[in-house]
């Protein structure tokens, strides 16, 4: 295998891997921009993956599967919004609860929704249809970058959604409202904005994106269902939001880098190279790199005030009559 083929394959794998991460990260950016921290991403993605897979398995309808994944993502985030916005619960603990409940429910349903012939398990079942790559004629023949034009419809969707998110948040009036709610809820409320309504809405939207991100895994990347198949990607998402400095345009860089690192181990093995390090070390490397990058970025942010600043009201409850 020559270097160009290897790079093309690596880019293709990175895009497939990064798609799921990008959807969920975009969702979390929307949520955090309004000042709500949703640590429930891991559980929401897993439940989305389950809902998508189960729907596609039962009906064979992929669009319906995507819709169901978004619906359960929204439903799970509704709990988070209710706890954090209405009941003013601690956002960290609430997010952890959402992750534990979402993962538990997904694993439980995975043991219930399968066919009787498989003891009601969904694990080991195959889908009759899945999202396959669609090649755009001529463009897909470009060396290396051609991989960008031979991806699934889910990835093409991101080519629209990412620029849209940036434009929406930074260039529209409504985007300004969102940022005002996340930066200074008191002022936003004084301007006549309903802080609770904005926070509810974008927590739900964030959950829909996370559900979609999960469905990308089970309907396209690895079309199957396995207990805990997100394997910590929901937590990488939380870190990616920080790396992107809450800017959708930078989300892509982060997801490409992390998708690339994760794909590298498979690409190396597929290319038949002998591994210099044990497979487990490659497996843990995305987490180690996340840890190192996060530390480095936090230190830089402190040296240069204002770099990578989070929304000021992130993580804190808001009530108009609080003193």
């Amino acid at each position, binding site marked *: 295998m020559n270097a160009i083929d290897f790079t093309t394959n690596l880019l293709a794998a990175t895009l497939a891997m990064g798609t799921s991460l990008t959807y969920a990260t975009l969702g979390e950016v929307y949520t955090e921009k309004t000042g709500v921290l949703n640590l429930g991403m891991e559980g929401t993605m897993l439940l989305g993956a389950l809902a998508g897979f189960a729907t596609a398995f039962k009906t064979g309808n992929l669009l319906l599967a995507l819709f169901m994944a978004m619906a359960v993502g929204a439903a799970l985030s509704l709990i988070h919004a209710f*706890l954090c916005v209405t009941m003013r619960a601690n956002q960290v603990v609430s997010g952890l609860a959402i992750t534990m*409940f979402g993962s538990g429910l997904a*694993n439980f349903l995975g043991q219930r929704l399968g066919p009787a012939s498989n003891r009601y398990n969904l694990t080991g079942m195959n889908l009759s249809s899945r999202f396959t790559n669609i090649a755009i004629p001529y463009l897909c023949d470009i060396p290396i970058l051609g991989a960008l034009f031979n991806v699934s419809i889910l990835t093409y969707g991101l080519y629209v959604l990412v620029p849209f998110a940036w434009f929406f948040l930074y260039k529209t009036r409504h985007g300004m409202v969102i940022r005002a709610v996340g930066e200074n809820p008191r002022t936003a409320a004084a301007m006549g904005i309903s802080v609770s309504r904005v926070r509810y809405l974008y927590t739900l939207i964030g959950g829909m994106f996370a559900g979609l991100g999960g469905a990308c895994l089970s309907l396209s990347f690895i079309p199957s269902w396995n*207990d805990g198949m997100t394997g910590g990607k929901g937590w990488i998402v939380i870190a990616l939001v920080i790396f992107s400095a809450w800017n959708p345009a930078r989300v892509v860089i982060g997801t490409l880098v992390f998708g690339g690192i994760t794909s590298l181990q498979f690409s190396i093995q597929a290319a038949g190279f002998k591994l210099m390090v044990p497979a487990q070390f490659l497996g843990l490397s995305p*987490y180690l790199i*996340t*840890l190192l990058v996060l530390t480095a970025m936090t230190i830089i942010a402190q040296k240069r005030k204002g770099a990578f600043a989070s929304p000021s009201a992130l993580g804190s409850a808001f*009530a*108009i009559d609080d003193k």
Partner: protein
Amino acid sequence: MRIHLQKRDSRSTLMTILVPVASLLVSFLLGAIVLALSKADPLVTYRAMLRGAFGSQTKLQYTIAKSIPLLLCGLAVGVAFRLKFWNIGAEGQYIAGVIGITWVMQFWTFLPVALLLPVGMVVGVACGALWAAIPGVLKAQWSVDETLTTLMMNYIIIGYAEYLYINAWKAPRGNMGTILYPEAAWLPRIWGRVHAGLYFALALVVVLYFVLYKTRWGFELNMIGKNRRAAQCQGVCIKRNIILGMLLSGAIAGLAGVIDSAAVTHQLTKGVNAGYGFTGIIIAWMSNLNPFVSILVALIMAALETGSDALQILKLPSAMGEVMQGLILIPLLAGSVFTEYRLAKSGTHTEATA
């Protein structure tokens, strides 16, 4: 007329007791709905779980044995949460403990067998403490977000442990797992399946209660968690306390790992990441960070786990325990607002000024 929340003048004691108890009942009710919707009879399932957890002497012993590492992890998380340090890494610190004791058991063969257990325990606890100290230092020195660092460190050590039991430390026979610890170095059993780890756990509850509620240091930790700025004004060194708090938290989680491997698994192998650290979060939060209450909550969580293991044999979904554990926190979080707020009708005189 609208109903809304109004701040209480002081925390309601009645509510601090009532809310967790009510949450437990609500979560069982919600669990019943989940079961009914997935075409499993809730009553049959709950009865099977109850029987699986407490149905016989052996089952009761299993449940108690399971509650020991859970209680310790709950205590570990509780210490960090007291500081509002979100230590999600008890899982990793637990594994660090297991790695530490396995290292001693396997390679410190120059020691007399009688010394292996105490030395192994000390090394394991130290490993847990050091693993926790890394995010502690990162937070104290540069305020690096601890939820993410502790979590990432879980995945890192899970991968490392896997490397150890599949490659580096693998026993010559079989395809995974280290060789068993010498039998003379096992933590003895005291009642059937229940092992001497229970003494450690219960003693630690008493010691922690004393340290956290009766000493100056415990008071400082509490103050940092409640009101960081006030603590700073009082001259409390926040950096030092964060690192010390995390050392203690990690040491306790490490102890959980050390005890469970010395008494139950006797090796480092697959399944070392059993999720005790995450259950510890539920235990700490449900018990309102109180060590004595943690005993009861840990027992309930252990019962949910042994109870749902029993479901597997009956061809009922064994992941139900996981669902229930996740469910419990939700009504608790929703309800805890009532300890600090009360419901009030809007439009009354006091509200007009708000």
